[in-house]
């Protein structure tokens, strides 16, 4: 599956390389956790360049206020200075916020440019004719710039029908204002408040004075202004209606803040400039208010997007706490992004490509500049990517938040899986060791039995035969008889050693006979209750056998002389159990340092995945209980092999 950015002509989601290459387990194990903090930008410390830009904006605002207030040109110098200062500062703050909040976006720079143009526009308050003209042209640039901002928002480039609106704006300047400047002795500022009263500065660009022509161009300009503002409103409205949910979230505040001003712009052009309806002070007030409000939309849009991303993060974090499976994480991503086709894909570092959660190869074209997919990882290590609707590229905070939460969820799952895997591996290797040790002991016992022990037994027989050949009461006879007795002792010792290494009964006949035998050898008065549990893997039988032995030895050593013990063995559907209980003196388990015996038992049971419990109380005896879960197929057929 090839996924491509929408900026690429015709290139979107062309199925290409659909082959199931990976299993879930490979997905789960695809990345080494590398805890390099990606970007410690939390709290957003101010950069020096931003401080400088901020200072510049404040200086510009002050300059604008000074020029307009002291120039004596503007119709309402105080109000106009205030509006300009507010506009300059708002655009500058908006620009700085955007630069911070979306470093990847150049929109912040556009806002800063707009702030700069506003400073230039304030020159229209200057009585010097050249500066005045520059200021007036700056005012038009501000209007065109604001139009560009609204059309391109939240990006910096214009697309499709936005160019029509931009064309009208340009036409207004080229066909209306510029000819007007050439033929009119006085030029007027675009903003009514900034227009000159009384003696206006002379127009230095005047080519020839033609009032009639100027009048016509004035009307052309007003008509084009109305068309411009109306086109802009239509474009914004249509764009909003067609926009995806995340884009609406971003655009709505901008639309809400700018629409009144643009509408006022259109109405003023139509009614005042074109139809000649006299302006009233409250129309002016509305115009001023909407103009101050206008740039706040850009800030609100960004803040709304960030707030929504934060909310999404909290929402996801809550739902991811239960460590849901990958499919559920993907569902959550879709819901939060409001993109039913969003997908999580996972990077396979060894194969160097992405796969989806079913292991199907997904090709993400790097040439698509990440507009429809965004990758997440640790440091330079890729882990996953979110493939999403191109529109979501305009809501990077949200995608970022969703990606980070998904990454966290996946990491959690992977960590948990790694932990489980390593525990499993440890247990397997432990079990292998125990099994190998068990087999080795059994082999040694067999070797002893069939080797040394057998040779000694054969010698013992020969000794007895020799004894038969000589007089029993002779010195030699008595010597030999004594030798025979000592021989028997040696044989007994050897037998004990061999039995201790691995009781042949355990391997040959299983737990029940071996435990009965152990009970016979036990030095403690013992009640035995052994259910016929059948056969189990050798290491399981050995673990239970030696634990019982150890527990019986503990009874003999610690339970006191009068203690009676009970040895029980039973099984249910899930596990084979044993219990060694006594009615001896008992102990306080919490204060009692764990003895070697108990540690041994724990180790033995732990190695085969079993469990061991010890309960005791002073005067109440002690119970050592253990169980080993029966895996499917654990019971061997050893009890039925006999031919």
């Amino acid at each position, binding site marked *: 599956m090839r996924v491509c950015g929408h900026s690429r002509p015709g290139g979107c989601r062309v199925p290409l390389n659909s082959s199931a290459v990976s299993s879930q387990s490979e997905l789960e194990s695809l990345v080494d956790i590398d805890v390099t903090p990606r970007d410690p930008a939390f709290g957003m410390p101010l950069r020096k360049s931003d401080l400088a830009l901020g200072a510049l904006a404040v200086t510009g605002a002050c300059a604008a206020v000074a020029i307009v207030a002291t120039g004596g040109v503007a119709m309402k110098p105080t109000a106009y200075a205030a509006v300009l200062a507010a506009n300059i500062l708002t655009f500058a703050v908006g620009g700085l916020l955007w630069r911070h909040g979306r470093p990847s976006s150049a929109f912040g720079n556009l806002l800063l440019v707009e702030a700069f143009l506003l400073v230039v526009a304030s020159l229209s308050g200057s009585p010097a004719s050249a500066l005045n003209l520059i200021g007036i042209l700056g005012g038009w640039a501000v209007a065109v710039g604001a139009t560009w901002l609204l059309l391109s928002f939240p990006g910096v480039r214009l697309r499709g029908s936005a160019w029509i609106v931009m064309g009208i704006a340009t036409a207004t300047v080229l066909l209306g204002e510029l000819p007007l400047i050439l033929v009119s002795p006085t030029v007027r500022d675009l903003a009514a408040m900034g227009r000159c009263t009384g003696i206006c500065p002379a127009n230095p660009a005047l080519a020839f004075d033609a009032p009639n022509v100027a009048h016509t161009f004035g009307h052309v300009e007003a008509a084009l202004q109305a068309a411009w503002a109306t086109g802009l409103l239509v474009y914004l409205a249509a764009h909003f209606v067609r926009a995806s949910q995340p884009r609406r979230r971003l655009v709505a505040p901008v639309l809400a803040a700018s629409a009144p001003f643009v509408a006022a712009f259109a109405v003023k052009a139509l009614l005042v400039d074109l139809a000649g309806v006299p302006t009233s002070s409250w129309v002016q007030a509305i115009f001023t208010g909407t103009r101050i409000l206008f740039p706040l939309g850009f800030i609100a849009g960004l803040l709304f997007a960030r707030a929504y991303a934060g909310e999404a993060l909290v929402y996801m974090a809550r739902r991811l706490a239960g460590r849901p499976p990958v499919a559920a994480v993907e569902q959550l991503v879709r819901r939060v992004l409001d993109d039913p086709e969003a997908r999580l894909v996972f990077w396979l570092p060894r194969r160097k490509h992405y796969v989806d959660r079913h292991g199907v190869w997904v090709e993400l074209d790097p040439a698509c500049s990440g507009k429809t997919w965004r990758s997440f990882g640790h440091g330079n290590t890729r882990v996953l990517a979110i493939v999403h609707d191109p529109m979501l590229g305009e809501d990077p905070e949200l995608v970022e938040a969703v990606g980070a939460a998904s990454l966290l969820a996946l990491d959690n799952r992977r960590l948990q899986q790694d932990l489980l895997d390593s525990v499993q591996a440890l247990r397997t290797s432990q079990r292998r060791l125990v099994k190998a040790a068990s087999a080795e002991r059994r082999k040694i016992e067999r070797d002893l039995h069939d080797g040394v022990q057998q040779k000694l037994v054969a010698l*013992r027989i020969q000794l007895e035969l020799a004894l038969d050949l000589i007089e029993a009461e002779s010195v030699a006879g008595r010597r030999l008889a004594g030798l025979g007795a000592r021989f028997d002792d040696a044989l007994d010792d050897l037998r004990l050693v061999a039995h201790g290494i691995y009781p042949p009964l355990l391997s040959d006949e299983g737990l029940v*006979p071996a435990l009965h035998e152990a009970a016979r050898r036990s030095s403690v008065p013992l009640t035995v209750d052994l259910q016929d549990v059948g056969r189990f893997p050798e290491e399981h039988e050995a673990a239970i056998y030696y634990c019982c032995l150890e527990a019986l030895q503990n009874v003999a050593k610690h339970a006191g002389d009068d203690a009676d013990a009970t040895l029980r063995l039973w099984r249910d559907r899930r596990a084979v159990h044993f219990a060694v209980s006594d009615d001896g003196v008992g102990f306080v388990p919490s204060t009692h340092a764990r003895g070697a015996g108990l540690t041994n038992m724990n180790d033995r049971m732990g190695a085969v995945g079993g469990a061991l419990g010890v309960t005791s109380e002073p005067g109440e005896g002690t119970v050592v209980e253990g169980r080993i879960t029966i895996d499917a197929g654990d019971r061997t057929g050893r009890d039925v092999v006999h031919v």
Partner: protein
Amino acid sequence: MSSTSEQPARRSARQPAYRLVVAEDAYLIREGIRSALERDEDEVEVMEYCPDFKSLLRAVERHNPDVVITDIRMPPTNTDEGIRAAASLWETHPEVGVVVISQYVSPHYALTLFEHGSAGRAYLLKEHVGHRIQLMEAIREVARGGSVVDPKVVDVLVEARLRARNSPLSQLTKREREVLAGVAAGQSNAAIADSLFLTKRAVEKNINSIFAKLDLTDDNTVSRRVQAALLFLAEAGAEPGPEEE
């Protein structure tokens, strides 16, 4: 130790010897058995020596012996072929006595051997094969349907019984226990007296006392005595459980 035995040879002069089949896979032990049996050539005649389970069953088929002496552990599985041979012969040749020789002291094997009944079965430790009296006693006992357990194995059982609380055996004196072990092992009173350095009368007194304490009816037949003691021990040994407390 001399060859004196209280038991008169049951076989008449016309039929001088017990006909034996011996199964033992270990060469050294087999040679030991051969030498031991050669001492009593007039009483035993070995028809065939077999190295494994299958050849043993075939040899029994072929010779129809009086007694089989078999190693407990032989090819093919090297686990308990001897006991399985005894069980198998119980079905096919109930009249054949079986002496299982073993290096295992664990009573489990002896008790398994007697699972189908103790008649004509003996469990002897290999190191006692050279002991002329023990070996010949065992052969004679199983040939006439009696049973014998190696004294050392009986010791283990008796020891186990002694540790069990409320066991009737715990009422026995040390001497009585020694005598009982001898009895359970199928030794004659004379043999017991011999091995314990007692007079025959003392042994008889002990035996009567044992039977009284164990609440067993007096019976003069040696094999019945042994059987009774053995079964008692076997049951007690196998299940020193709560039912007899």
